[in-house]
């Protein structure tokens, strides 16, 4: 009978060809490190991080735009805390605030509603970043703005979809043997959303939760799929992720947003991977005149290899700047700053790396 002990024994003693599996979600990267997953599996199975940390892949030009808006009289920019210290080409939101820019931290986009009603002479701009998991919160905000007829809130968007990015990644990092799919993004999308992607990339995929058992089971599933030459999507988090996902949110996303090309920091432009407010909702959009930022891995090479890390080509310690010139207090790239960035996670758990790898 299959149980966790047998799964660990099989993964630890794995003798097949070397495998490279990508965990797409930054929270999985963190859990893998914190739970010591690498120490439980064969060194022939390499786990690499993907582009699933929204903070890491939001272009520097977006930060520049948010800071510039926050410096305009009458404008306040609201942002999740994760984004605060991420450097743009110029100052971060945090540094901008220190120099007098009007920037405030929020936990939920809803917080802007009270502010906007209390200070109707100001314009509040929500720095709207994130993947599908965060989209419900923006749809909820847009509904409230419409219903309450609030006119002084705008969204500066850098919103993205994971499936077009994985499709792009499959052609640019073709040596990935399997994908551990994000648990809570999949709550929105559902299991079926990935099926054509798995066929297109001819690569197996497993939707996983965040516990030791969940992650080991996903690795085991992918190893077995590779050995049996399967390219299927297996939902290993069925108590939370359904086949069709949250259809109400999918309808709302379709109502408010349309897909289009967007820039990913370290990856460049990816077709159809962005979500932009539809024309009929432009009154809620912060107009900002910029060419869609095309910041590829090449642009980072002088300072760090964040682009290569986001593509799963290297692990953070392989970057020459890691720990030497790039640390959480003096970051060179976004992967070191974010709590869910692969470099920051590896830095914080370096001791485990020495013991486990």
């Amino acid at each position, binding site marked *: 009978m299959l149980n966790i002990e047998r799964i660990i024994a099989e993964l630890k003693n794995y003798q097949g060809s070397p495998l490279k599996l990508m965990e797409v*979600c930054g929270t999985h990267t963190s859990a893998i490190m*914190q739970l010591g997953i690498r120490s439980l599996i064969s060194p022939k199975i390499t786990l690499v991080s993907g582009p699933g940390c*929204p903070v890491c892949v939001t272009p520097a030009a977006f930060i520049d735009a948010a800071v510039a808006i926050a410096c305009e009289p009458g404008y306040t920019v609201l942002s999740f805390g994760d984004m605060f210290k991420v450097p743009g080409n110029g100052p971060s939101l945090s540094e901008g605030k220190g120099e007098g820019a009007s920037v405030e931290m929020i*936990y939920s986009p809803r917080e802007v509603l009270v502010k906007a009603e209390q200070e109707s002479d100001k314009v509040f701009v929500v720095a709207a970043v994130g993947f599908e*998991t965060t989209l419900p919160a923006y749809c909820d905000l847009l509904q409230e703005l419409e219903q309450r007829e609030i006119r002084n809130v705008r969204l500066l968007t850098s919103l993205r979809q994971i499936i077009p990015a994985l499709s792009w990644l499959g052609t640019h990092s073709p040596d990935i043997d399997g994908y551990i799919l994000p648990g809570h993004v999949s*709550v929105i999308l559902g299991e079926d959303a990935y099926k054509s992607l798995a066929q297109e990339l001819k690569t197996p995929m497993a939707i996983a939760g965040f*516990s030791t058992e969940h992650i080991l089971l996903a690795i085991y599933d992918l190893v077995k799929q590779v050995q049996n030459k399967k390219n299927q999507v297996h939902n290993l988090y069925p108590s939370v992720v359904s086949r069709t996902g949250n259809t109400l949110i999918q309808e709302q996303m379709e109502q408010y947003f349309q897909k289009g090309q967007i820039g990913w920091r370290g990856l460049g432009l990816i077709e159809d991977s962005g979500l932009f407010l539809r024309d009929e909702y432009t009154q809620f959009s912060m107009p900002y005149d910029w060419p869609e930022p095309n910041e590829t891995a090449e642009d980072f090479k002088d300072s760090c290899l964040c682009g290569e890390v986001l593509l799963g080509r290297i692990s953070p310690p392989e970057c020459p700047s890691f720990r030497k010139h790039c640390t959480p207090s003096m970051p060179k790239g976004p992967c070191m700053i974010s709590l869910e960035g692969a470099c920051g996670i590896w830095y914080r758990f370096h001791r485990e790396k020495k013991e486990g790898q």
Partner: protein
Amino acid sequence: MCVAVSARVIETDERAGKVDVRGNILNVGIAVRNVKPGDYVLIHAGCVIEVIKKEQAEEIADLLRELEDL
């Protein structure tokens, strides 16, 4: 950014409500159909994104606590 936390619904109208996250009461939006008081839910960025079972909610809460403590 993409990890959701579990919570219990205290009160709700169609699109908004109050939830209990480890003893903290939060006002949230609701993006799931037919949520009612007492339900266990996943919330992200101040919005309910799915209804889940109690055991699942407890597992997620325990796991997040474990990950935070490490």
